[in-house]
């Protein structure tokens, strides 16, 4: 099963084993990861599952859709070129080893 590494703002990291058919957000909340709120439960409405994608992985992710793009403008932490909403990243075997940094705040 693909594993994902989350790096917290303080530099500590968590490696999470994911299962098939879930989003990065779902895997994170299922493991009780601090730093992903996901208030809307994955309906692309709240921008509280914001992550910064490690540069080396950016091109391997599916493109940002219009609604995600608009929501990212409203994220609590600064939007950067590598900002994504983790509810919009579905885990596939190719994403094994994905590295994501967590913002300092989600609201």
């Amino acid at each position, binding site marked *: 099963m693909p594993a994902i590494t989350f790096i917290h703002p303080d530099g500590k990291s968590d490696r999470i084993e994911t299962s098939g058919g879930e989003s990065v957000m779902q895997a994170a*909340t299922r493991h009780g990861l601090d730093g992903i709120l996901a208030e809307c439960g994955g309906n692309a409405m709240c921008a509280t599952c914001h992550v910064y994608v490690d540069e080396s992985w950016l091109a391997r992710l599916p493109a940002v859709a219009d609604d995600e793009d608009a929501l990212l403008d*409203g994220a609590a932490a600064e939007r950067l070129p590598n900002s994504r909403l983790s509810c919009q990243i579905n885990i596939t075997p190719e994403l094994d080893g994905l590295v994501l940094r967590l913002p300092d705040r989600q609201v």
Partner: protein
Amino acid sequence: MIGSGTAGSGVPHLDVDPFDMTFFADPYPTHERLREAGPVVYLDKWKVYGVARYAEVHAVLNDPATFCSSRGVGLSDFKKETPWRPPSLILEADPPAHTRTRAVLSKVLSPTVMKQVRDRFAEAAEARVDALLEKRSFDAIADLAEAYPLSIFPDALGLKPEGREHLIPYASVVFNAFGPPNQLRQEAIERSAPHQAYVAEQCQRENLAPGGFGACIHAQVDEGAITATEAPLLVRSLLSAGLDTTVNGIGAAVYCLARFPDQWQRLREDLTLARGAFEEAVRFESPVQTFFRTTTREVELSGARIGEGEKVLMFLAAANRDPRRWDKPDSYDITRRTSGHVGFGSGIHMCVGQLVARLEGEVMLTALARRVAKIEITGEPKRRFNNTLRGLDSLPVTITPA
């Protein structure tokens, strides 16, 4: 066995009426009965299917092609009965029509817009707490849960000062009307004419102040996103669902924090828990208790066969306390991970104003917890009865300054 008004084999029939006063007074034992009877039940009283477990409620919410909204999200089937008012263009619509109108409201109530109104909402919450600290003893429903949203939401919409007293009664009609033709619904609709007239008038472009949510909806006409006849009806959605819901949400949060002093202390020690405390109150009390869908085809749901054109009642409140999904579901825990609760629904129809609700709840609880040491309930809380909304009519409290 399958056909209008009859349940397929294997679906347990229950004789409960979930729109009855005795049910409203204490719905929890019935919620448990509904959950434990099976994944899908049939309610003979109103000839509808019901789902009360989290998995099935979530599944129905997330399959809008099979469980549609355009035939009404109350008991009334718009294919068979004339709706009591022109249907909502968003709540009572299906894709692709829904997709377009939904995008407009999502934009008007987006996280970016919330950042812009945040300071204003927070200042109003501080001002309200100032006034409450002067009083010390007050009704936490009228003076807090109603007074706070009334002090910001109508202004945020851009409504004129006159006539705002119609807002809560209008919303009360809307949410009663989702229910069956019982006394609550009949009386609400009979008395609705003046409220309806007020709302129809306020939805017009010339009556909405520039810069408000209402004017922003009308501005979408100029962008070509919606037509000039659609815009007033979309403003109506905010008037219907934007105020009474947050009143009940904030009322629920204050009622929880007053009842569970240990949770109040935790909040006082860490104000960053305010947003979670509000969210957990929405799960715990579920201010919006139920919604219906209508099947567009014969469908099998968790082993139950449901015919085409059947109403399915989703017990959001029961799903939010389903022990299959939640650890200690009957505990109010402000540190709980609430993500996935269905208090705001789920899927394409999930509450479009959820960010407004959370913002109001967060800033109000933050202001309260910073300045109030203790909230004590000083009299018997009185319940307000509505076919869809759960909340109190009055909650006498005394607060002690911090």
